[in-house]
Structure formats: structure tokens, C-alpha cells
């Protein structure tokens, strides 16, 4: 059973190699099935191992398997070793299952694209790297997976490389996440220097015994790891890459920038939660960043007119919720919201991909309209996804997951009214912008005609994800509505349970409040975007809307504060001392050439004279001896 664990990341990697080496010779059908099939089999294996693990809990906390020794030098040793516990099994399930559905969708979506095989190769490499990340036993292997998903993100964002803007967006994503990665690797260095091991469990154990709560080294390390998480998960201040990353194909946005890669930061913080409990100030910072991000992204989503950019800002906002939950110690809440968010956000991105492709690559929602009757299946699934995103009360999974976070934001020991208020305003905004999206895109007059009907490859995954977006929530119901906690029981085998203040009796009040807020958001969206009163038009042209649309002008800020000074410095440094050294060597060589080429004037008599002088010299020297 344990050896199957190593197969889960290995199968997509193997498929990647096959597609890279033989992709040119395989037909599209075979390439598609190889690509999707490997992830599908990985999903199956995950389910098998998962059932086995769940049955073995809580006695056996995790399965470990060492595949081979990676490096060993002195006291530095790292192995290719995987460890499967409750946290990783949830992530593995989401990655492989949602990934499998997205691969099936891609067979239909990329059917007419010339880079079909290349696409599946990159996607498989991504799935493999992400699985390595979540299954890694030691932090160095996790960093390998971390870098791997960063690479694949770059490759897939810039997939249509013939357009230069796609390359720019891919580079922006890579560079900004790099900033986070650098912070993370410094944190890993500090951990190794302090504890001498890379193994995560050992590090957690040693840290809890050796470091005092609130000690500066714990705060420093936790802050550095948080930096890494911020980059990958696109939270403030490193969130500017995600909206531009929508330049990639829609399945890429669904897999990488909704369901999996951007949640790697959440995984990291959950996995190393001991470090964060040792540095309470960093945890507070996580919660504050999460709250701020969800508000900023929520407002920005209101101002967007590109369909995928609305969803991108929505992702940033929802991950802000997850960070908020992590910050107040509600780890199971964060992971639950991750799983449900993966379902409905992937659904929304895939449905948006269908809409965009059917309308011949039209991204602007104000050029869409009235698609409700033309594409009923897509409309229905999109509606279910948006409802789940807006946390429509009682019927959608999103309600249960988001509600749990809001409750913990208030009731946890480190939570409070301020964080809850931020969350509730964010929930209002979420409902507002998601139904704005629905009303403008699917209702009203038809502005662009759909050119074809989406095939089964694309619609069936939509339907499956829609079902999950509704039913997925019923495994974790709050105390006042059924008190089912299957999910938190599973996850709390690995993660600490959330510590709540003595306010449990007020839970029903908060649930009613959040339901009302969600419904009022939907109603306001109806008034503003369906009935379309005239003041909406003037709002659209206002400065405030422009500010929202530019994502609170973070790009401009970074351009001014970071890019301009660095470029100026580079310009000034163009002619420094080391440059001069290199140039003078080159100039010396040229000067010597000019001098010596005088001796090569083509005159035969010169050459003869030099012969004669040479002979005279040599013979004289020989005679002297």
C-alpha cells in the first residue's frame, strides 16, 4: 500500500516524459488520453490510499515511504520521501480529481490548438510537481515541488508564446513569485542551520521544544515562510501577477490559478503551523493580510470588465479568506474552504472558458449578453458556481465553508469583531460582483452570437463540478444546523483544532447575518446590473471605478517605487570599474593587433629580411654556446 503513494506523483511525471519525448509522433487522441489518463489513474490511486488511511486513523497518523536518497553531504541529507497524512490526502484528492476533470475539459478546449501535446505535457508536469509539493516528507523536496509549479505556471501562462503580452505576463508571474520564493528559501536555510534536518516532522518537533513562543528567531523564520506563501498565493503585497496571468488558456487558469498552485501558500502555512503558533505576531499578520486582501480584491473585482479578470480577483479574495482563517487558527476551516473553493472556482473558470471560446475569444462582458437561452448547460453550471461563490444560504457548499470562516473569525481566541466585519463586507462584495457577472453576461440583449456549441468533453466536467459545488458542503455542517463534522475530524488528525472563546451560543446569529448579507448582495446586483438604472453608466466612467479596475493601482505603485529606481541604478552603473577592466582588455588586444599588423605589409623583401635576421641571430646564439 505504501508504495502506491510514490506512484501518485510519478504517474503524471512519467506521462510528461512520454509526451515530451514522443509527443510529435502521437496522435491528438492518444496524447490527450495519455495526459488525462495519467492524472485519472493518480486520482484513483489517491482514493484507494485515502480510504486505507482514513480507516487507519486515528491510530496511524501518516504513511511514510522513502523512494531514494537524494543528497547526502556531511550532516545535510535529504531523501526523495513522501509522507501521506490527513492534510496531504485532502490536497491530493483535490489536485488529482479536479485536475482530472480539467484535463478531460482540455481535450475539448484545446482540440483546435496546434500546441495540443505540449499543453498536456506541461499540465502533467504541473500536476506532478504539485503532488510532490503536498506529499513531500522534507522541506527541501517541498521546495522542489514549489519551484516546479512556479516553472509550469510560467510555461502555461505564456503558452501562446507568439503574442508578446503573454510572455510578459508569464515573466511577471515568475518574477513576483520569485520574491516570495527567495524569502522562503532563506527561511529553509535558517531552519536547517538551527535544527540540522530538513524533515518537516522533526523540524516541527524540535522547534516546539527549542524555540520559545514569540522569540525573535521564530518570528523571523515564520515571517520568511509567510513571504513565500504570499508570493505563491497572490496576497498583498505580491498579488499583482494573478490578474495578468489570465493570459493563459482557461484550463490553466482553472487548475493553477484557482484550485491548486495559489493554494500552495495555504498548504505551507498549514503544514508548518507549529512555527506559526510559536510566533503569534506573525499569525496576526496573516489574518490582517488576509482581511485586507479580500477587501482590496473584492472592490477591484467590481471594476473589471474582462470576465476572467473578475474571476482572478475573486480568487485572490477567496484565498484572503483562507489566510484569514489560518491567521485565527481555524486550520480545518481554511482547508475546507480550500476544497470547496477549488470546486466552484474551477467550475467558474472552465465555464468562462467555454463562453469565451464560443464567442470567438471575446473577453469583455459588456460585449456579451443574453447567453442564457443559447447555452443553457453552461448558464446553469455558471449560476451554481456563482451561487456557491456568493455563499447562497443552505443550498450551496460555499455557504457552509465561508460561514465557518466568518464564525471562527469572530469566535476564535485570536479573532474579533474587526476581522469579522472585514469578512462580512467581503461576503457582500463577493455576492455583488459574482451576480454582476451573471446578469451582464447571461441576461439582456445578445451582443455577440455564439459560433458553435460546446462539446461533451467540455460540458460534462462542468456538470460534475457543479454537483460537487452543491453537495460538497454537506460533510461539514455547523452545530446549529446538523453538527456534522466529518471533514474537521479528518483534518484535525494533523492540524490543531481551533480554540474558541466562550461565545458559542451566538453562532446562529452570525449565520443569519451572513445569509442576509449574501442575499442583499444578490439583490443589489439585480437592481444595479439587471435593471440598469442610469446612474450606473456614470459610475462606470468615474475615477473610483477606474481605481478599482486598475486593482487599486498597485502596478503603478510598484513601477514607481521599485522598477524606476532599479532601472536608474542600472543605467548609472553601466560604466563602472569592472566594465572598464573588461573594455581595456579588449582595447589592448586591438591595439596590439594594429601594432603587429605593420609587420605584415605583404612585401616579400621584408619577409626575406626577417628570415635572414632570424638565421643570423640563431646561428650566433648557437655559436656562443
Amino acid at each position, binding site marked *: 500500500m505504501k508504495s502506491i503513494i510514490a506512484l501518485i506523483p510519478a504517474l503524471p511525471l512519467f506521462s510528461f516524459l512520454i509526451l515530451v519525448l514522443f509527443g510529435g509522433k502521437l496522435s491528438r487522441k492518444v496524447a490527450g488520453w495519455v495526459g488525462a489518463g495519467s492524472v485519472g489513474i493518480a486520482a484513483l490511486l489517491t482514493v484507494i490510499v485515502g480510504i486505507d488511511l482514513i480507516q487507519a486513523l486515528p491510530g496511524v497518523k501518516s504513511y511514510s515511504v522513502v523512494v531514494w536518497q537524494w543528497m547526502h553531504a556531511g550532516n545535510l541529507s535529504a531523501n526523495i520521501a513522501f509522507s501521506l497524512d490527513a492534510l496531504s490526502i485532502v490536497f491530493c484528492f483535490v489536485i488529482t480529481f479536479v485536475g482530472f476533470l480539467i484535463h478531460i475539459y482540455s481535450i475539448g478546449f484545446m482540440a483546435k490548438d496546434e500546441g495540443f501535446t505540449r499543453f498536456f505535457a506541461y499540465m502533467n508536469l504541473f500536476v506532478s510537481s504539485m503532488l510532490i509539493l503536498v506529499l513531500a516528507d522534507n522541506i527541501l523536496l517541498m521546495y522542489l515541488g514549489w519551484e516546479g509549479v512556479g516553472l509550469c505556471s510560467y510555461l502555461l501562462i505564456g503558452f501562446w508564446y507568439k503574442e508578446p503580452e503573454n510572455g510578459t505576463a508569464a515573466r511577471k508571474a515568475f518574477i513576483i513569485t520569485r520574491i516570495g520564493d527567495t524569502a522562503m528559501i532563506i527561511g529553509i536555510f535558517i531552519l536547517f542551520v538551527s535544527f540540522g534536518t530538513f524533515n518537516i516532522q522533526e523540524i516541527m518537533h524540535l522547534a516546539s521544544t527549542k524555540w520559545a513562543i514569540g522569540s525573535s528567531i521564530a518570528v523571523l523564520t515564520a515571517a520568511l515562510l509567510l513571504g513565500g506563501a504570499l508570493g505563491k498565493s497572490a496576497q498583498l503585497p505580491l498579488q499583482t501577477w494573478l490578474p495578468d496571468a489570465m493570459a493563459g488558456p482557461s484550463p490553466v487558469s482553472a487548475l493553477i490559478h484557482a484550485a491548486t498552485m495559489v493554494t500552495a501558500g495555504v498548504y505551507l502555512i498549514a503544514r508548518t503551523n507549529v512555527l506559526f503558533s510559536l510566533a503569534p505576531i506573525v499569525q496576526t499578520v496573516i489574518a490582517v493580510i488576509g482581511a485586507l486582501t479580500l477587501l482590496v480584491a473584492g472592490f477591484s473585482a467590481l471594476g473589471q470588465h474582462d470576465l476572467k479578470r473578475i474571476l482572478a480577483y475573486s480568487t485572490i479574495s477567496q484565498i484572503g479568506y483562507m489566510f484569514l482563517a489560518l491567521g485565527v487558527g481555524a486550520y480545518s476551516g481554511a482547508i475546507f474552504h480550500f476544497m470547496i473553493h477549488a470546486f466552484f472556482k474551477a467550475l467558474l473558470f472552465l465555464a468562462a472558458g467555454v463562453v469565451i471560446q464560443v464567442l470567438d475569444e471575446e473577453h469583455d462582458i459588456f460585449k456579451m449578453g443574453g447567453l442564457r437561452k443559447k447555452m443553457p448547460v453552461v448558464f446553469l453550471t455558471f449560476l451554481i458556481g456563482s451561487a456557491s461563490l456568493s455563499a447562497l444560504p443552505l443550498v450551496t457548499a460555499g455557504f457552509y465553508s465561508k460561514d465557518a470562516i466568518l464564525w471562527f473569525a469572530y469566535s476564535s481566541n485570536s479573532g474579533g469583531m474587526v476581522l469579522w466585519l472585514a469578512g462580512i463586507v467581503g461576503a457582500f462584495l463577493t455576492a455583488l460582483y459574482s451576480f454582476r457577472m451573471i446578469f451582464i453576461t447571461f441576461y439582456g440583449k445578445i451582443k455577440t452570437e455564439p459560433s458553435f456549441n460546446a462539446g461533451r468533453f467540455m460540458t460534462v466536467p462542468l456538470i460534475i463540478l457543479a454537483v460537487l459545488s452543491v453537495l460538497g458542503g454537506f460533510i461539514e455542517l455547523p452545530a446549529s444546523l446538523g453538527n456534522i463534522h466529518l471533514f474537521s475530524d479528518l483534518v484535525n488528525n494533523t492540524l490543531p483544532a481551533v480554540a474558541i472563546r466562550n461565545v458559542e451560543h451566538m453562532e446562529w446569529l452570525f449565520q443569519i447575518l451572513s445569509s442576509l448579507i449574501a442575499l442583499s448582495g444578490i439583490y443589489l446586483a439585480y437592481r444595479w446590473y439587471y435593471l440598469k438604472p442610469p446612474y450606473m453608466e456614470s459610475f462606470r466612467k468615474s475615477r473610483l471605478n477606474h481605481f478599482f479596475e486598475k486593482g487599486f493601482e498597485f502596478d503603478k505603485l510598484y513601477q514607481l517605487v521599485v522598477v524606476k529606481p532599479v532601472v536608474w541604478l542600472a543605467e548609472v552603473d553601466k560604466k563602472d570599474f569592472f566594465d572598464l577592466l573588461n573594455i581595456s582588455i579588449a582595447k589592448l588586444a586591438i591595439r596590439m593587433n594594429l601594432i603587429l599588423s605593420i609587420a605584415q605589409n605583404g612585401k616579400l623583401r621584408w619577409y626575406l*629580411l626577417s628570415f*635572414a*635576421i632570424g*638565421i*643570423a641571430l640563431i*646561428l*650566433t646564439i648557437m*655559436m656562443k654556446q
Partner: protein
Amino acid sequence: MDIFFYIAAAIAILSTILAISGRNAIHSLLFLILSLLAISVVFYLLDAPFIAALEVIIYAGAIMVLFIFVTMMLNIGLEHKQEKKWLRPQMWILPSILAAILFIDLMLALKNMPTVVAGKQVILPKQVGISLFTTYLLAVEIAAILLMGGVIGAYHLGSQKKKVLHRFLIKK
């Protein structure tokens, strides 16, 4: 017998000097032939009569004559003034110095040579012939091939393709 050697040597050196410093090409070549004849006398005195004969026949008689033919064909001897311009006295300084240095080196090298008494026997042409056709047979064949190559090369290198244009195409 020695005196003949010194006389022939003096004639050879003198005529060589006149050959290399002459301005008229034909005169220089004729002086050179004279030098070769003197050297041929030296060869005879050095117990190599066959070689002396070969020197006259081949070197002076064929090679130098070839030189004279080409010089007459190119009419070089008429350019008296040009040669005078090119042969200024100060041109001789540096080569003379170099030649002097090399001559001194030669003398020094000869001083360190162990003295050997000259041989008593005369080498007959018959011996040379036998040696040529037994020990050095391969070299003879190769020399023959070289000569053939020289003939063919000289034929091809000396040919000039004269372009004959139609009278309408000649530029006036």
C-alpha cells in the same frame, strides 16, 4: 694544383659579385654563366669530373639558357634606369652586415671542426653510377616524377588565355 683552385675560386667570386650587382639583366646572367663555369673547374679539381660535366651541360647550358630566353622574352634588359633607381648604395648596407655576421659564424663553426686528412682515392663516375642505380634507385624514380610534374606545371602555369572579343564588343 692548388693554384688552379684559388684562381678558379677568385674568378667565381668575382663574377658572382658582378652578377648580383649588375643593372643589365643579360649581362648579369652571362656573368653568372661564367661563375658556373669556374665552379665547374673547381668540381674537376675536387675529383668529380662527371659532376663538372653535368654542371656545364645542365646548369649552365640548360637552366641559365632558360633564364636568358625568358629575360629576352620579357625585354627586361632595356629597363636600365629602373634598375639604377632600385639599386641605391644604401640598400647594400644591412644585407652586407648580415652576410658578414653569418660568415663569421661559419668561420667559428669551422674552427671547432676536427681536422681530417683528405682521402687518397678518386671517386670514379662508375662508382657514382652504381650507387645511383642500386642504393638510390627509388630517389631516381621520384626525381623523374618530379621532373614530369615540373614540365606539366610549367606548361599550365605559362599559358595565357587571351580573350578574343567580337569586334562589336570591343570597347573603343
